[in-house]
C-alpha cells in the first residue's frame, strides 16, 4: 500500500537520547512583561494571556512586573520549605521503592511549585481534584507525612485501607479528592463539585489538575464544556511538564497552540504561566480563584514546567529523551529559583538552605520510621484481609458477606 510517500504528519520532539536538548519551541516572554488584567475582563480581551508566559522572577532573581504578588518573606520561606519537603520526601520514597519496600512510586521533581503555590493561593474550603503528581497539596493541607507513607505501604494505618497503589492519596478533611488511576476522570468531577457549590450559592471553588498528555482524554473536553456552559467556579489546571511517559507534548496537540488556549473556543480564558516560578503561579491562581468566586466562571491555567524525573518507578526515560534535558530546561528548577530569590532579597542563605534540607531529611526519616511501625509489605502488623470487602457499598450486601466468610475459611485452611 505504501507505494507513494506518506503525508501523515508525525510530531517529533526536538531531541532524542544522545542529542542536544532543545527547548527553542517554548515561547518564553520575559518576566514582568505580561499585563495583568482585571478579573472581570472579557475572555476575548485577554487572549494574550494564553500565548504569553506570565513570569514574576527575572534572570536576576528579582520579583518584577504587574503579576508580582508581593508575598511576605516569611510566607515565601514557608513555601520554600514545602517545596523542599516535597522534593526530599519524593527522593526518600523513590529510594524506598528501589529497595523494594513499596510497590510503586511517582515523584513531582521539578513541578513542586504547582502544588505548593496553587495550594497556598486557594482557601481551605476550596476543593482540590488532583492528579498523581500533586503530593505537595496534601502536605500543605495538613496531611501528615507518616500518613502518606502509610498509604504507600498499604499498611494498617493506610488511609486507603490497602486498596490503592502508592501515591493515590485522598483526604476528606483536607478537601482533597481521591485519585482514580484512569487519567482525567477527576476533571468533570471537579466541575460538578463547583456546580453544586454555585447552586448552593456558596463561595467555595474547585480546582483540578491533569497533565499535558491527559488533555487528549474525553473528560478534559467534558469538563471544559460543562464549566463553560454553567460558568462553574472552577480552576482547570494543565500541568504541561513536556512529557507524557515517552511521548512529548506535541502528541497531545501542543505543537501549534499552547494548552492554555484550549478553552478559548468555549469562551474560557486561559493563562500560560511559568510553572517553576512560585510567585507567578501563586499570582495567576489567586487571579483565577478571585474571578471564579465573583461569578466569572472557569479559568484554564497551563503551568509550563518539566517532568524532572522518570514518569514513575516503572519507567526509564533515558530510552526516549536526552539525559540532561532537565538541566537544560530554560525555566530551571522551582526550588532553586525561589531559593535564589530569597537569597537575593536577603531573606535566605545557602547555609540556611542546607540546614533546612537536613532538617527535612530528618523529619522524613522519622516519619518513615514511624510509618513502618504500622507495617510494611513484608513485616506486620498487616491489614486484615477481611476489610477488603468493606466500602464496596455503604452496607455490605449478603453476597459480599458470604464471599468474605469463604475467603477467611480458605485463607485459614492449609
Amino acid at each position: 500500500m505504501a507505494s507513494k510517500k506518506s503525508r501523515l504528519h508525525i510530531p517529533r520532539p526536538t531531541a532524542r537520547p544522545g542529542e542536544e536538548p532543545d527547548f527553542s519551541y517554548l515561547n518564553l516572554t520575559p518576566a514582568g512583561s505580561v499585563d495583568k488584567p482585571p478579573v472581570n475582563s472579557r475572555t476575548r480581551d485577554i487572549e494574550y494571556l494564553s500565548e504569553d508566559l506570565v513570569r514574576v522572577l527575572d534572570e536576576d532573581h528579582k520579583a518584577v512586573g504587574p503579576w508580582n504578588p508581593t508575598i511576605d518573606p516569611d510566607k515565601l520561606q514557608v513555601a520554600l520549605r514545602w517545596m523542599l519537603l516535597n522534593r526530599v520526601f519524593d527522593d526518600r520514597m523513590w529510594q524506598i521503592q528501589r529497595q523494594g519496600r513499596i510497590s510503586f512510586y511517582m515523584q513531582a521533581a521539578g513541578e513542586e511549585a504547582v502544588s505548593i503555590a496553587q495550594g497556598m493561593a486557594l482557601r481551605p474550603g476550596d476543593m482540590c481534584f488532583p492528579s498523581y503528581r500533586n503530593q505537595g497539596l496534601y502536605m500543605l493541607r495538613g496531611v501528615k507525612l507518616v500518613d502518606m507513607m502509610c498509604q504507600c505501604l498499604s499498611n494498617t494505618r493506610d488511609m486507603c485501607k490497602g486498596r490503592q497503589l502508592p501515591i493515590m492519596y485522598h483526604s476528606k478533611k483536607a478537601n482533597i479528592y481521591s485519585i482514580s488511576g484512569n487519567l482525567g476522570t477527576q476533571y468533570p468531577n471537579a466541575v460538578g463539585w463547583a456546580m453544586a457549590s454555585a447552586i448552593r450559592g456558596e463561595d467555595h471553588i474547585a480546582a483540578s489538575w491533569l497533565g499535558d498528555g491527559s488533555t487528549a482524554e474525553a473528560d478534559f473536553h467534558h469538563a471544559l464544556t460543562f464549566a463553560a456552559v454553567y460558568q462553574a467556579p472552577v480552576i482547570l489546571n494543565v500541568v504541561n511538564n513536556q512529557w507524557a511517559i515517552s511521548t512529548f507534548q506535541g502528541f497531545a496537540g501542543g505543537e501549534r497552540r499552547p494548552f492554555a488556549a484550549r478553552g478559548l473556543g468555549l469562551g474560557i480564558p486561559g493563562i500560560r504561566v511559568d510553572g517553576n516560578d512560585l510567585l507567578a503561579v501563586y499570582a495567576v491562581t489567586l487571579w483565577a480563584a478571585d474571578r471564579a468566586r465573583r461569578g466569572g466562571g472557569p479559568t484554564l491555567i497551563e503551568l509550563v514546567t518539566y517532568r524532572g524525573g522518570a514518569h514513575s518507578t516503572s519507567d526509564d526515560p533515558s530510552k526516549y529523551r536526552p539525559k540532561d534535558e532537565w538541566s537544560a530546561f530554560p525555566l530551571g528548577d522551582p526550588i532553586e529559583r525561589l531559593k535564589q530569590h530569597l537569597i537575593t532579597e536577603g531573606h535566605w542563605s545557602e547555609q540556611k538552605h542546607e540546614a533546612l534540607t537536613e532538617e527535612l531529611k530528618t523529619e522524613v526519616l522519622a516519619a518513615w520510621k514511624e510509618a513502618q511501625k504500622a507495617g510494611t509489605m513484608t513485616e506486620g502488623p498487616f491489614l486484615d484481609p477481611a476489610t477488603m470487602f468493606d466500602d464496596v457499598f455503604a452496607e455490605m450486601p449478603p453476597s459480599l458477606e458470604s464471599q468474605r466468610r469463604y475467603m477467611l475459611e480458605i485463607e485459614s485452611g492449609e
Partner: protein
Amino acid sequence: MAQMNMIEAIRSGLDVVMDKDPGVVILGEDVGYFGGVFRCTDGLQRKYGEHRVIDAPIAEGGIIGAAIGMGVNGLRPVAEIQFADYIYPGFDQVVSELARLRYRSAGEFFSPVTIRTPCGGGIRGGQTHSQSPEAIFAHIAGIKTVMPSNPYDAKGMLISAIESDDPVVFFEPKRIYNGPFDGDPDKPAVPWTSHPKGEVPEGYYTVPLGSAEVVQSGEELTIVTYGTLVHVAQAAAEATGVDAEVIDVRSIFPLDTKTLSNSVRKTGRCLVAHEATRFSGYGAELTARIQKDCFYHLEAPIGRIAGWDTPYPHAFEWQYFPGKKRLAAGIRKVMETQA
C-alpha cells in the same frame, strides 16, 4: 392511591424526593424545560426551578462525571441518560469513578448518584434505541443495578435508589412505560389502569433494592425474569397451561438469591429469560447461581431464553424480542425434558 403509568410513577417518585430533600437535583439531556423525551421529568423544572432540573450538554460522560462531583459536594443527583444505548460514552465515569470512589477512599468519599435510563426494545427503535446492557453493569463491583417492571415498583424503587448512599443504575423498560405488554404487538395496547400495579400511592413509599418478587406462584416451573418479560412470561405460561411460578428479579444486583432458590427447589424446573443478548448476559449469572443453589432439586437443565447474539434489528424486532412464542417454547422444553 392513584392510577399511574410508569412514566407518571417515575415522575411522581422524583417529585416526592425533590420535595422532601432539597439536595436532589436532576441532570440530563432535554430533562428541563422540555421535560424529557419520554416526559418523565415533565413539569419538574417549572416546580423546582432551573437550578434543580438542569438541561445538560449532549455528553453522557460529562453528565455522569458532573453528577459525581455534585454528589461529592453533598447533593443527591439523578442523571438521566436518554437511552440506555447512549450510556457507553459515560462508561468510564461509571466504572472508574462512580463505582470505585467509596472503596478506594476507604469510605471517606462517596457519591450517591442515581442514573435513570430507558432500556429494551419493542418500540421499533432499531439497534441504538433498544439495548438492554444490564449485564455489563451487574459485573461492575460497586454499583447497584435495578429494573422495575411496573409503576408501583418503579416509584418505590426509584425513591430507594435516590435515597441510597450507593450509586444505582436504574433501568426503565420503555416498552412498558404506558402499559403492561404480553409480547404480542398485534394486540391492542393495554393501559396500566388494567393492572393492579398501576395503582400507585401519591406520596412517599419505598420498595427496597435487593429483593425479588414472586408475581405469580406455581408448582411446576419457575420462570426467573425481569422488566418487560415479566408480563410476557405470565402470558406465555398461561398459553402453555403450565403452572408456573413467575419471579420478577427487579434487583439485578444485589440479587435476591433466596427467593430464587426457594422457588426452584420447590418446582424443580427453571427457565431464565431476558431481552438482552444471550451470550454472557445476565441470564448466565442467574443460571449459574441457580444450578449451584438448587442442583439437587433440578429435574431438567435450566432453560435460557434471551435476545439473539446479534444487534437488535429494526425490521425483525418481533423475531428478535423473546416473545410469547419463544418463551412458551422455552417453557415446554424445560417441562418436556425428563429428569
